[in-house]
């Protein structure tokens, strides 16, 4: 957390007062909230009334996707189609899935190209084909895994041509690239605190004044009646400080970090010539570098680099902690092996040239070792024959319409089910341990 944000948090948290109370302490808290709302609005190109404070990015995404869907369908029962992309964060993907499963929604998944980029013409085609049945379009501003920045303004303009509200998850973008809500043409925009030096558990949905959303949370009617719940004054104040600091420093930050990142990419490519650089080479987040290391397993590389104090990410993990092949890379046309061989290096405020040097120094040996760990070895310590691996999940074709083909995400966690009811145990019992 940024020092400024932490100090603001602590100072505010010491004060007593429910921002919804009418007495002096309540008014003081409310004043802090409203000042924060104005600060956030000012730096993100929104009106204060368009800032809905929430519990973070996941809530904002759920509120936007489900809330706008419900409101639009409420005004026209045929409007039950959602248009989204295969590379969204799970907060959006799973909200869309939920609407399909529980609200009879239908969905149009927009494809991405090999760099992970959406094409506004695909959106136009989708909207033209389903003109009156689309409830909401949602597409992220920048991808959290491969860093690709989407043509958000163009996408929003296409949605506007058809009078359909457009939501964008800008969690990764704010503070990294210029973000202006009004200029973007989006109807709703998700932002969260912990990605830009603010507290975890506070975020906002920027929701256009004329955009209706049915609430997820019902209660005291706070936040335009869209998000009930006692306001987290200290969190909101710290969040606003962080947003303001990040946005005001964005240009300088981006230039510094992008230079480091470009150096990292250049030297990683020299150190490991067979590396595949993923994502858009130019339209990408300044601190993001994403690679596939052919023949390696990402989680083995992660373990080896972690042991040397270098933190990186393999993508997402299922609830048990198993690294999953990235749905983003699969959507970009990578096969299962390439998706599993990938690592993301993120540079930020505290990153230095020394960090890049350390990574470049450690990487070749780690790659070599991870490759040996992945390759079938002879002779093995043990005489067991190599187990045939299941056939890889086929890479999605561009314009594949089915979500199942586009999103084999979590398949390893959902594929099988051994739950069998009954009694009468038989057979051996009692020795598994270790």
């Amino acid at each position, binding site marked *: 957390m940024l020092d400024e944000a932490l100090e603001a948090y602590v100072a505010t948290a010491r004060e007593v007062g429910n921002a919804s109370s009418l007495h002096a302490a309540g008014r003081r808290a409310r004043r802090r909230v409203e000042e924060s709302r104005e600060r956030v609005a000012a730096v993100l190109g929104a009106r204060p009334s368009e800032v809905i404070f929430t519990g973070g990015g996941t809530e904002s995404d759920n509120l936007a996707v489900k809330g706008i869907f419900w409101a639009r369908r409420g005004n026209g029962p045929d409007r039950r189609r959602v248009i989204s992309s295969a590379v969204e964060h799970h907060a959006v993907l799973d909200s869309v899935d939920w609407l399909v499963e529980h609200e009879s929604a239908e969905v149009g998944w927009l494809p991405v190209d090999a760099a992970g980029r959406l094409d506004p013409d695909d959106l136009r085609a989708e909207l033209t084909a389903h003109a009156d049945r689309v409830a909401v379009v949602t597409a992220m501003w920048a991808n959290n895994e491969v860093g690709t920045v989407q043509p958000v303004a163009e996408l929003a303009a296409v949605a506007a041509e058809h009078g359909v509200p457009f939501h964008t998850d800008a969690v990764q973008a704010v503070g990294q690239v210029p973000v202006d809500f009004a200029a973007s043409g989006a109807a709703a925009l998700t932002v969260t605190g912990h990605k830009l030096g603010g507290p975890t558990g506070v975020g906002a949905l920027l929701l256009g004044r004329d955009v209706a959303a049915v609430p997820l949370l019902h209660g005291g009617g706070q936040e335009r009646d869209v998000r009930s719940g006692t306001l987290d004054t200290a969190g909101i104040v710290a969040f606003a400080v962080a947003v303001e600091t990040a946005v005001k420093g964005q240009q300088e930050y981006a230039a510094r970090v992008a230079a480091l990142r470009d150096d990292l990419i250049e030297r990683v490519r020299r150190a490991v010539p067979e590396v595949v650089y993923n994502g858009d080479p130019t339209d990408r987040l300044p601190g993001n570098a994403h690679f596939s290391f052919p023949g390696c397993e990402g*989680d*083995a590389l*992660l*373990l*080896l680099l*972690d*042991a040397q104090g270098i933190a990186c990410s393999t993508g997402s*993990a*299922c*609830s*048990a*902690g*198993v*690294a999953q092949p990235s749905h983003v890379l699969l959507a970009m046309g990578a096969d299962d092996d390439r998706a599993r061989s990938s690592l993301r290096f993120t540079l930020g405020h505290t990153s230095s040239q020394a960090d890049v040097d350390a990574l470049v120094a450690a990487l070749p040996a780690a790659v070599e*070792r*991870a490759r*040996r*760990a*992945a390759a079938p*070895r002879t002779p*093995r*310590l*043990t*005489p*067991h024959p190599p*187990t*045939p*691996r*299941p056939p890889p999940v086929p890479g999605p074709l561009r314009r594949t319409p089915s979500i199942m083909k586009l999103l084999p995400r979590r398949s*390893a*966690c*959902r*594929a*099988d*089910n*051994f*739950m*069998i*009811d*009954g*009694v*009468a*145990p*038989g*057979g*051996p*019992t*009692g*020795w*598994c*341990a*270790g």
Partner: protein
Amino acid sequence: MRVLAAMSGGVDSAVAAARAVAAGHDVTGVHLALARNPQTYRTGARGCCTLEDSRDARRAADVIGIPFYVWDMADRFHEDVVDDFVAEYAAGRTPNPCLRCNEKIKFAAVLDRAVALGFDAVVTGHHARLGPDGLLRRSVDMAKDQSYVLAVLTREQLDRSMFPLGDSTKAQVRAEAAERGLAVADKPDSHDICFIADGDTRGFLAGRLGEAPGDVVDASTGAVVGSHTGAYAYTVGQRRGLHLDRPAPDGRPRYVLSITPKTNTVTVGPAEALEVSRVRATRPVWTGGPRPATPVECEVQLRAHGDVVPATVDLDGDTLHAELRRPVRGVAAGQAVVAYRPDPAGDIVLGSATITG
């Protein structure tokens, strides 16, 4: 040494990892995700394979202060252990999945990967002794001894294994866990097969193999005395759940004597017909070192926690013969015969082989 601690989420592996740290090793904890759907192998923490177990392992690693990762071994486990388990029952044999998991997963796939990544050994919470002499011995706690399911390991595998719990009783392990502040100190032991929810092996197999009705035949008369819905659901020595149509002519209880997949027949008979004095087995593994001079006088154990019987073990090519000093009941094909040499410092595992008849 750089050591990889396989952490199931249970108390044994947590204490084993802590002891490895205390012994001065550089320890990294790994939880093996064995279920393709971790929420469904078990519906609660029972020792391995659930989300709760994964969390328990992670918390133990936190308390011990070691790095922790989850390794996805679900596909390997499914193919090498679960599918094998089903295939063995379908073939009329009685497999031991824990032994298979040690042979194929923990001390094979996991150990191989660990070595390739620069680790020197794998440490587990098995109750068995593995001392500087390289010999595998029974645990001091006979009730918890797991040398039987480790007897498939080769010299090479044992050379890269550490079992720090062999000199302790389970009670001591639990007490130490509590002293170390490990929340799993009083977690119940796992007792069933980790990949079968509710311990319903028969239901599990029926779901995989389908119903296959057939006859239950009495060995003494050759008469059909009942029916079954799948011969795979029976184990040699089983008495309960036979549902015979009529009592045997001698009025005495009947036990499963054999299963014949070819004719889908379950043969039953009186208890004494179960008695076996000679055991034939295949795929011998010499745990303690090179193949011993045979015939060798030793003791054999024919199932996990089963009786120990003096025997003479001989080899004929790849086939092992055990001549038992006294007859034993309920010897099932597919189980392991494990040979031990009695020793005051803990009985020594000589080797094992898979029982064929």
